[in-house]
């Protein structure tokens, strides 16, 4: 019963924070809500018995990809307007809702860890199983993913390098 309540809480947080993220006018606020939504989805993954996917969701999605977004918003260099926006970010009404949602997720995490719920629910897929499948039948997909990431790296370098060089000339 507990994991059902936790699941509905986490999915409500995910949906509400996604809607809030997509209706913000300010890109930084939107990213904070999006990170919250990804963390809530990670809790859902953990509850349905996929702890490895939950860890990847937090580390790669909420960690790496969102940091890329934030770096680019910083590189766009909003100047004086950006400074005012930065001051505005410190006001409580901006961060109070994400903090409440994040605290709810923290409570869920503590509950889940203290009861070790997912180990007893439906089929738990361990990271060992995932690794064996990934480097067994799916090894070709790993190679294709590496080629895709290499292409992404080269493309991003190409687009970003011209930006930096032309910015220096001006």
């Amino acid at each position, binding site marked *: 019963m507990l994991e*059902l309540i936790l*699941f509905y809480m986490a*999915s409500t947080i*995910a*949906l509400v924070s*996604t*809607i809030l*993220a*997509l209706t913000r006018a300010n*890109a930084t606020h*939107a*990213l904070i809500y*999006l990170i919250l*939504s*990804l963390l809530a*989805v990670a809790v*859902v993954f953990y*509850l*349905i*018995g*996929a702890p490895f*996917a939950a860890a*990847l969701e937090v580390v*790669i*999605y909420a960690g*790496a*990809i969102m940091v*890329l*977004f934030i770096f*680019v*918003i910083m*590189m*766009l260099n909003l100047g004086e307007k950006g400074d005012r926006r930065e001051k505005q970010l410190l006001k409580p009404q901006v961060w109070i809702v994400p903090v409440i949602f994040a605290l709810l997720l923290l409570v869920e995490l503590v509950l889940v860890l203290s009861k070790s719920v997912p180990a*007893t*629910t*439906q*089929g*738990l*897929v361990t990271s060992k*199983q*995932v690794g*064996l*499948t990934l480097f067994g039948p*799916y090894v070709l997909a790993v190679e294709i*993913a590496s080629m*895709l*990431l290499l*292409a*992404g*790296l080269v*493309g*991003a*370098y*190409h*687009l*970003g390098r*011209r*930006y930096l060089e*032309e*910015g220096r000339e001006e």
Partner: protein
Amino acid sequence: MDGVSIPLDHVLLLSALLFICGLLGLMMRRNIIFILVSLEVMLNASAVAFVAAGARWGQADGQIVFMMILAVAAAEVAVGLGLVLQIQRRFKNLDMDDANRMRG
């Protein structure tokens, strides 16, 4: 076990609702940063469906596809944000309606 486990329908419903949010955001917003964010939401929603189905049958395949989606999302964001830098430099704003003309 049936009484306590999370129903697959509800996880798929969550995935569908997240996807609809992403799709609506993609159609309504004109700022390119928000368009990229909506694409992320949609990719994430499809990942939820894959992981839920994989967990339902106790197979690791769902999480393998999740990792592929992660790789696709990372590559897409890297190239997309490079394009954001170019558009900002060329049009001095991030409105996609300014960038809808092709030269040719």
